[in-house]
């Protein structure tokens, strides 16, 4: 079996597995977010936080919950890193520097997991397990809660109430993420991922000399890193490290874990709005983009025609031999099209176009299928914009799922799609215009530009993967990316919840033959086109000066 065939078969296996699993998982999540029962452990948690899980919230109250909880998370994580020196299991590491501690706290709370540190040289067991891993769970649950609130906005009529944030948050953790993570971690351990609290080992190398390895609760963090589309690796090499991702099978399993919840949420959405087909239309849009990107990525990486690469069978630089071009390409596309940011290869070493595809994936706004929760609400926002333009073309005030898209709705959606491009472009141009940030670039020319563009694209879209090359551990980059991650995460959430509130208050319009149907292939095609054109037009000049200039050279 040639490497191309192997790559294609891996992609097909993934699609098959997702097709099977998204039905029960989607159904399960719909039940979780619609149920009126509380588990005992949940009741303890509500008592601990001091909230009434049955109180319905208006969008403002829901938002207050999201922001308060997340702010507390940033503060806690920051302090935990700053006092690392006195914590048990610190492995002798010093407290983390303020700028880096802020960056890391912002990064994990914003579900970005951008890492300007080397995990195995900076964070001890307590920070990794009680700080970072916990945020991996709860930041994912916050994303899912906001998405569910938006779905309720579509599903409910003539009420401003969006459910209860605390109950959505807690259930997301206890009934979805934890059970899946336990099963996933056991499978990973069975496949060779490590799980221990050992200290630092001195290991001899084949070539002489020695190397320091440390163990850790890797499998438990690895599984939620993928499942919650977080992406922050225990080790600096992330999923390229054999302790995190030892075999081609674990590689495929990790990709599967990344896609599982975002894909299944489309079904949850369909069930909650009362039309599974609407969920399929959204899923079809995501799948079309994902398959297209995988195909493009494989094509550009396999068909590289420079001498040395041809001998290697494609662009193998920066890729693990055990994953090959196929497995690495699928991983790279998946991690950038979701807000994961875990990597099993160096994106900087991809071909010019390949790096561009990874970047474009993030620029789409992490919606195919996107981060847990954030992918669904991001896609629904794009659907609203597409419906608005297309809806006019059928001669009606545009409506989506029976809710009219009026001035208020389009205002919120329009500002939403403005946020990440603003953050990416403004901060990239600042980085280039200021005197010191360019010193962080490793490469000159178009590739150096791509390093900076990639960094801010990754931060603003809460991806967290890095292009490598760029030294992001400077005061400026730590502060700038930290801010960008927080703004890129929480400003959109404000708009999504405001939108949910305004949709929930509406009286639905019954569908007639004159209504634009949004569960058809035509609509899926339109949505793909709208996403491609709006994103493409926004970033075309920047992409032209980075990956395109490199790829066409």
């Amino acid at each position, binding site marked *: 079996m040639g490497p191309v065939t192997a790559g294609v078969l891996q992609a097909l296996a993934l699609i098959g597995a997702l097709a099977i699993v998204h039905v029960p998982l989607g159904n399960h999540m719909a039940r979780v977010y619609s149920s009126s029962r509380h588990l005992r452990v949940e009741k303890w948690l509500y008592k601990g936080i001091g909230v009434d899980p049955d109180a319905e919230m208006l969008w403002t109250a829901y938002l207050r919950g999201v922001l308060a909880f997340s702010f507390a998370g940033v503060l806690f994580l920051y302090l935990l890193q700053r006092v690392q020196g006195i914590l048990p299991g610190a492995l002798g590491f010093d407290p983390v520097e303020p700028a880096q501690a802020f960056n890391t706290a912002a990064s994990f709370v914003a579900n970005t997991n951008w890492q300007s540190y080397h995990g195995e040289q900076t964070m001890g067991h307590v920070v990794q397990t009680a700080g970072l891993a916990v945020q991996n769970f709860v930041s994912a649950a916050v994303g899912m809660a906001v998405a569910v609130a938006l779905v309720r906005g579509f599903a409910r009529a003539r009420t401003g109430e969006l459910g209860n944030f605390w109950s959505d948050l807690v259930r997301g953790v206890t009934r979805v993420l934890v059970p899946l993570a336990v099963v996933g971690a056991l499978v990973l351990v069975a496949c060779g991922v490590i799980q221990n609290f050992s200290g630092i080992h001195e290991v001899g190398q084949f070539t002489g000399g020695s190397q320091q390895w440390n163990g850790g609760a890797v499998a438990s963090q690895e599984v939620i890193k993928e499942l919650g589309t977080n992406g922050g690796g225990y080790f600096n090499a992330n999923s390229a490290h054999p302790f995190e991702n030892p075999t081609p099978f674990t590689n495929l399993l990790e990709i599967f874990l990344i896609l599982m919840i975002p894909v299944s949420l489309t079904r949850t959405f369909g069930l909650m709005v009362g039309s599974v087909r609407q969920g399929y239309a959204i899923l079809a849009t995501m799948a079309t983009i994902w398959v297209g990107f995988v195909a493009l990525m494989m094509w550009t990486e396999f068909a590289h025609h420079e001498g040395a690469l041809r001998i290697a069978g494609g662009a193998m630089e920066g890729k693990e031999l055990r994953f090959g071009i196929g497995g690495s390409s699928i991983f790279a596309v998946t991690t950038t099209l979701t807000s994961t940011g875990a990597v099993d290869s160096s994106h900087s070493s991809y071909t010019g176009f390949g790096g561009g595809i990874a970047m474009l994936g993030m620029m789409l706004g992490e919606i195919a299928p996107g981060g847990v929760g954030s992918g669904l609400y991001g896609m629904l926002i794009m659907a609203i914009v597409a419906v608005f333009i297309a809806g006019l073309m059928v001669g009606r005030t545009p409506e989506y799922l029976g809710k009219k898209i009026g001035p208020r709705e389009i205002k919120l959606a329009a500002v939403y799609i403005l946020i990440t491009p603003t953050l990416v472009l403004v901060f990239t141009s600042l980085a280039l*215009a200021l005197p010191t940030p360019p010193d962080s670039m490793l490469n000159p020319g178009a590739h150096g530009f791509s390093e900076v563009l990639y960094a801010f694209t990754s931060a603003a879209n809460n991806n967290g993967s890095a292009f490598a090359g760029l030294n992001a551990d400077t005061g400026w980059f730590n502060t700038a990316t930290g801010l960008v991650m927080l703004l890129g995460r929480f400003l959109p959430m404000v708009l999504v919840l405001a939108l949910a509130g305004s949709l929930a208050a509406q009286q639905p319009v019954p569908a*007639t033959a004159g209504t634009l149907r949004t569960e058809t292939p035509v609509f899926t095609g339109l949505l793909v086109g709208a996403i491609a054109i709006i994103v493409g037009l926004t970033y075309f000049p920047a992409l032209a000066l980075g990956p*395109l200039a490199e790829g066409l050279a």
Partner: protein
Amino acid sequence: MATRIRKPRTQQPRTQRPRIQKHEDSMSAATSTPPESRAPHSDLPAGRPSTEGRGGAGLFSPAQLIASLPEAFRKLDPRVMAKSPVMFVVWIGSVLTTVFSVTDPGDRFGWTISVWLWLTVLFANLAEAVAEGRGKAQADTLRKAKTDTVARRADGTTVPGTELGVGDLVVCEAGDVIPGDGDVVEGVASVDESAITGESAPVIRESGGDRSAVTGGTKVLSDRIVVRITTKPGETFIDRMINLVEGAARQKTPNEVALNVLLASLTVVFLLACATLPPFADYAGTRLTLVVLVALLVCLIPTTIGALLSAIGIAGMDRLVQRNVLAMSGRAVEAAGDVSTLLLDKTGTITLGNRQAAAFVPVRGATEAEVADAAQLSSLADETPEGRSVVVLAKEKYGLRERHQGELVAAEWISFTAQTRMSGVDVDGRSIRKGAAGSVTAWVRERGGEVAEDTERLADGISEAGGTPLLVAVEDGDGARVLGVIHLKDVVKHGMRERFEELRRMGIKTVMITGDNPLTAEAIADEAGVDDFLAEATPEDKMALITREQAGGKLVAMTGDGTNDAPALAQADVGVAMNTGTSAAKEAGNMVDLDSDPTKLIEIVEIGKQLLITRGALTTFSIANDVAKYFAIIPALFAAVYPGLDKLNVMRLSSPDSAILSAVIFNALIIVVLVPLALRGVRYRPMSADRMLRRNLAVYGLGGLVAPFIGIKIIDMLLSFIPGIG
């Protein structure tokens, strides 16, 4: 309430219908039509716009462009420009490049770009000015009607019309111009309303009832009426009309606001993409001039739709005005596009309004031909529409030539009277009578004749089917006897069935409102093919139906003219008041149909949809255009530093300057090219949303992608002949 929903039944085609109807129409003008229901449009029974949904087509000529030029220049005032965010950005860009060119006067490229940017702004203003210009002509005509009048109060004092107050009683006699809007409280008069409606036939206005409203500026032709003024001077119907057609009262509609928000946000996106470009370019090793950046920005922001947006709105209102419909707000026009339930009055909208003979049914022992012959003879003296229709049916269906009263010598004609309820003729020793069942039966019995035993069954059958039975009887040598029954029925206007079919495809439900009993109503509803009906409808029932539909999230449109329609008109999302109606009705509705043609509701819906479609289509086109512009400009800017980017120059444009200039010129010219489309509206044909989306996506989406590649290439080829640029 007797409303129910069911699937429309298929009906046998009725081939004789159209011809009968044509006949009826030509006769009705002479015989039965009351003077106030003038019929410039009702002679188009299907209500189909003669221009196939492209109303106002052909109203655009190059001469209008030139005439609107001064106005277009006046609109360059930044305070006016600021109303459209997209075009204001172009305006600022033009100022910037002009200033830049002044500081570097030798830069021919800079000057050329500046000129074309100013032209872009000017073309946008021109589009709006042309759209407004069409309304202005109409407003001028209206102003002529609004001459200063002197009002004679009922108490004998005279005041200028402008000083009348609400509640004043004024006297108007033949030759007087009515000084203000009001209701007739005393007397009857014929009034010339041509100043407003453009229709020269006078109408009757009388106190009480539903024809009491008079409009200021119209002229009393005969008799004397006393009018109670109901509107303050300056707020009269004619004043509002002038404001409306001039666009002075124009406010942005919700959908227009929403679209403006989207366009503004796209403008910000492109502003960002352009503003962040200089540091990127510096890093890449090239310097971008201000002129080039502004040119890129103007090409990318959605100028096409930004330039045409207000023209589309004005033209949409104008299309209604062309059809003699006044919308009191743009919001109402938009709502018309969203309507999902149409309430249509049966009489005058769905049916012709008069019962017509549909069949001759013989009783046992008689033949159909006998009945037809007798029916025809007995109806010759009957000048009612029903009577005429019997003659017509006999001719059309039984080939009986119409005999004239003079042909039959020594015939004694008995005309129809309300007392006898019969008409007939005594000729050649035969007496023939036709009329209401009771009267004819009595006439036969009086003469010792017999009434066939199946007569009653036949008559009841017709009643049950929603028709009216008329008996035909004869007395001759064989004695007096009933020959048969004439089946009179409400005749559905030609083409209504197809119309309702179209509406159904558009997702609009039709509900027929009638005062008839449920049986009759159902028969007519079936024949017309409406989705639902409301029988024995009272104004309260109507109101209840509207609120029920609205509670389900539906938008409801209706027509009405009476005072008791006013609450329902106000409640409906689109309430079209007939101009012949009362002032209460006209106040309550959000549109007034000057022709008082209820069928027009269907056209109003189509115009509402067309307005939205035009906006959506041009927005899609405008955004899709950007792809080609990037392929023209990006290689032009950066191919010098990254030669690989020249591969993006898929159009093979001759030089960087020419590429940028071609994109800017295309961007400006496409506005002018699309002005006629914006004014006329995108062609609208009733079809399902899915088909319409596919069609418009193909035309305006794909078309918008491809067209600029071709256009820019052509402009570049032309430019390359000009030395110094190519």
